[in-house]
């Protein structure tokens, strides 16, 4: 840090006016912009995965961090978005040839609306419940959709999944695809940020803190929860839409509860209380996974131990801990300043 002590730097000022989310977001964006500087295609691949899964985890946090409900079926919308895009992708692709850029972008756009429709139907029932019951019903719907995709071979190719989702030649270059993903995810997150800072976003926080009280303010609790469920589902659908062309295939596992679990992990590792928390969690989770898998097949053991340590010693996630540290230090500094006077 080159900024002199008495004049707070940009980062410190961002923290003061917008909280921890702003400086971390700026930092992340700079890191993401320069990620292709890392040598080799492997890290580009990892970075792309971080962006997509980060968007997915952040869409989950609209339900968890902002609305206070934990969904174990959120991957269903990720998977449905992925399948919708994949199916249109295959339909638009010239037989034996590449897909055109326009057709490719068109295929990407169907993910969110199709996921939104699914979220509307599932959400209609889920928002009648809260807490563990909400979690269980979302899990049951997610698993039902998983098995439908898994067993409906004629429509979804079942366990085989849909293969050969090769993007147009220009985007087959990992760096180009990466920047496309970065652009889409950035725009999506700006929109998401606006939503969380809107009156609607704050109504979500009232529902998280006290649903009954919110109802007495004249808020139709279920209708607002449903709206948020659909919004969260749409963003998950967008993440899913990007997943197909990224991994060149889609499979039913994308809808399963283990995939939902990944969003939960990332969110809690990063910190659900901060807007960018899940993205930070995605960075940590995916990066670690890439590194650990180079050395050992025992990745679950590693991540399991890390999660265990976070739950025991860092509740509130990485950002939660950092925020607490900064607040404590600033509190001490303020107290010291008062004493000096």
């Amino acid at each position, binding site marked *: 840090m080159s900024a002199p002590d008495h004049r707070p730097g940009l980062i410190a000022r961002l923290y003061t006016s917008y909280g921890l989310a702003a400086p971390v977001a700026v930092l992340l964006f700079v890191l993401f912009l320069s990620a292709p500087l890392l040598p080799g295609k492997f890290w580009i691949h990892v970075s792309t995965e971080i962006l997509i899964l980060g968007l997915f985890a952040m869409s989950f946090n609209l339900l968890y961090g902002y609305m206070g409900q934990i969904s174990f079926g959120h991957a269903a919308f990720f998977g449905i978005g992925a399948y919708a895009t994949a199916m249109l992708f295959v339909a638009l692709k010239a037989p034996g040839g590449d897909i055109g850029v326009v057709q490719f972008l068109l295929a990407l756009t169907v993910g969110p609306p199709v996921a939104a429709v699914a979220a509307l139907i599932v959400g209609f029932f889920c928002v009648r419940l809260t807490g563990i019951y909400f979690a269980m019903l979302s899990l049951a719907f997610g698993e039902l959709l998983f098995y439908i995709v898994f067993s409906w071979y004629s429509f979804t190719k079942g366990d085989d999944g849909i293969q050969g989702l090769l993007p147009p030649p220009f985007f087959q270059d990992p760096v180009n695809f990466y920047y496309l993903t970065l652009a889409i995810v950035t725009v999506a997150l700006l929109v998401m940020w606006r939503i969380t*800072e809107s009156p609607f976003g704050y*109504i979500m926080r*009232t529902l998280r*803190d*006290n649903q009954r009280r919110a*109802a*007495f303010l004249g*808020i139709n609790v279920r209708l607002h929860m449903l709206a948020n469920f659909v919004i969260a589902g749409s963003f998950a659908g967008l993440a899913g839409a990007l997943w197909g062309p990224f991994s060149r295939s889609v499979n039913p596992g994308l809808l399963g509860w283990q995939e939902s679990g990944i969003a939960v992990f990332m969110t809690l590792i990063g910190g659900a209380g901060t807007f960018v928390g899940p993205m930070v969690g995605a960075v940590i989770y995916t990066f670690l996974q890439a590194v650990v898998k180079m050395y050992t097949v025992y990745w679950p053991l590693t991540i399991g131990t890390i999660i265990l340590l976070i739950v025991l010693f860092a509740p509130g996630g990485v950002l939660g801990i950092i925020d607490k540290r900064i607040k404590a230090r600033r509190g001490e500094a303020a107290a010291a300043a008062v004493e000096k006077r």
Partner: protein
Amino acid sequence: MAAILEVTNLHKHFGGIHVTRDVNFSMDEGEQSAIIGPNGAGKSTLMNLLTGYHRCDAGKVVFEGRDITNRPPHQIARMGISRAFQVSSIFAKMTVAENVRSAVHAQMRQTFNIFGVASRIGGDETGRVLALCGLDGKRDIVAGELAQGDKKRLELAVALAGKPRLLFLDEPTAGMSIDEARGTMELVDQLNRELGLTVLFTEHDMGIVFNHARKLTLLHRGVIVVQGTPAEVRANETAQKVYLGEHQL
């Protein structure tokens, strides 16, 4: 003056227990009155019935000429009835200003606005309500970390942000110091006097009840024992027997 609230033959039982039975009363516009009664008399249940939290088994509630019986709470709130709870139930992880602002947004029907910036909408009204309730200096404190008295004041502020024409207060001074309680009740009096807000409150402290209510309704085991001015209730023999006697007036 026209009746703003009319309650006819209100009936509620949980299992085999009648918690309110044949409750009849009405409130005139601009009236400030209290419901009193020993613990378990059905005061809170009555408020829950009037605000739609519990379903009535029989009877009718009419507000400003409209039947609101068994309407869901959010619809009743939108019609102009606000409620402050006995155990303060504000939004604990949000700041004081955010608490009130969201209540203001609900009143402005802005709750589905997803692209507006929350901090730029309804700011004046939020500031007005905060100032009114003496929470000006505590805007940025997280509500859950407030002192008990401040929580109750925020509870009131959130209720007032809905711009109600009828306000229910459940034990508005519970847990407050004597000074805080006096301040709160003076604020309620002021709202009633200056804005013509109709107020119905429950309260344990008989001093407050007799000083701040112009009409009393005494509930006992879910039944109205007596209704009238404080003087009338004080003079009533049954009232003395079931309740007032215990309170050594």
